């Protein structure tokens, strides 16, 4: 099997130039999906029979939670690839995925709290999923703190990659324990019975939003990885060429 594509993918220059071509399209697609899905979900989807209009927060909460968790696995996978194949680019991906994932986890918690107030009568409930999300935020913060604690960027990258991997082993255990803990202490007054199935008219905009969040994640991650590449490869001729071009065409500098 030919592995050339794999090694080429590890080249920062290749990544930069390829994403330059993709970004405008991906950005436009993200914008259309997010704006379309949000307008659809907020104004056109039918309201929930029990929860009324507060249920519309689902269109932000569920996609953010999805990406928060998926982002952790992506970060750990990038760290593992960096540790095994010593690929510079994958450390950059890991480094940029950490703050991005932390912000999305915070968003999932925030939208969950705001949704909880009208639904359960309180901003915070020690529900199993809410608690797991909070622990996920702690895991992200740990990786971030470790990343920036070392003077040497290289050691910081490797150490936080290992921590992210340890976290990945732990996440299923944490989720299961919190689930078990919740059933042990579940108060009788609050029941979290899920609707058996969502009406298609409610589900379709949610699907659009989830897709939109995935695209958004890709765009945000690519943008910050590109900055990382520029900063690290600043001495190379291809970066200098880019800078020269941008100086000639000041519009290009903003894109």
């Amino acid at each position, binding site marked *: 099997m030919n592995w050339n594509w794999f090694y080429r993918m590890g080249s920062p220059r290749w990544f930069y130039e390829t994403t330059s071509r993709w970004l405008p399209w991906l950005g436009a697609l993200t914008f259309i999906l997010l704006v379309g899905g949000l307008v659809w979900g907020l104004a056109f989807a039918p309201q929930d029979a029990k929860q009324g209009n507060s249920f519309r927060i689902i269109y*932000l909460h569920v996609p953010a939670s999805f990406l928060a968790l998926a982002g952790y696995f992506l970060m750990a996978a990038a760290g593992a690839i960096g540790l095994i194949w010593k690929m510079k680019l994958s450390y950059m991906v890991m480094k940029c995925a950490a703050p991005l994932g932390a912000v999305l986890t915070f968003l999932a918690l925030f939208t969950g709290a705001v949704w909880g107030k009208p639904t359960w009568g309180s901003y915070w409930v020690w529900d199993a999923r809410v608690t797991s999300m909070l622990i996920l935020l702690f895991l992200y913060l740990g990786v971030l703190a470790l990343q920036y604690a070392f003077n040497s960027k290289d050691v910081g990258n490797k150490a936080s990659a290992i921590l992210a991997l340890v976290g990945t082993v732990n996440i299923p255990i944490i989720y299961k324990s919190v689930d078990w803990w919740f059933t042990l202490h579940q108060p009788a007054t609050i029941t979290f019975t899920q609707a058996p199935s969502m009406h298609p008219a409610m589900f379709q905009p949610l699907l659009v939003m989830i897709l939109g969040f995935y695209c958004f994640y890709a765009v945000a991650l690519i943008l910050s990885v590109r900055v990382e590449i520029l900063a690290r490869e600043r001495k190379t001729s291809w970066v200098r060429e880019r800078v020269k071009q941008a100086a000639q065409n000041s519009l290009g500098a*903003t894109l």
Partner: protein
Amino acid sequence: MKFQFDNFSHLLNMDGHGAYVWAAVAVTVLLMTWLIINPLLQRRDVFEEIAREVSREQLRQDASREGA
């Protein structure tokens, strides 16, 4: 698919749930915009830094050539 609200103020109010829904939307939009804007600003800074470095090296080279 039909518009679920009678008018604009009904959309804002959402039968009393408007404050919650719109607060969630506002914070999400704000943070997500920041996630896009921040790397773009950083990128501009890096470009300017590299441009300064290049011109400094250029000056140094010119000076050494004149000296020789």
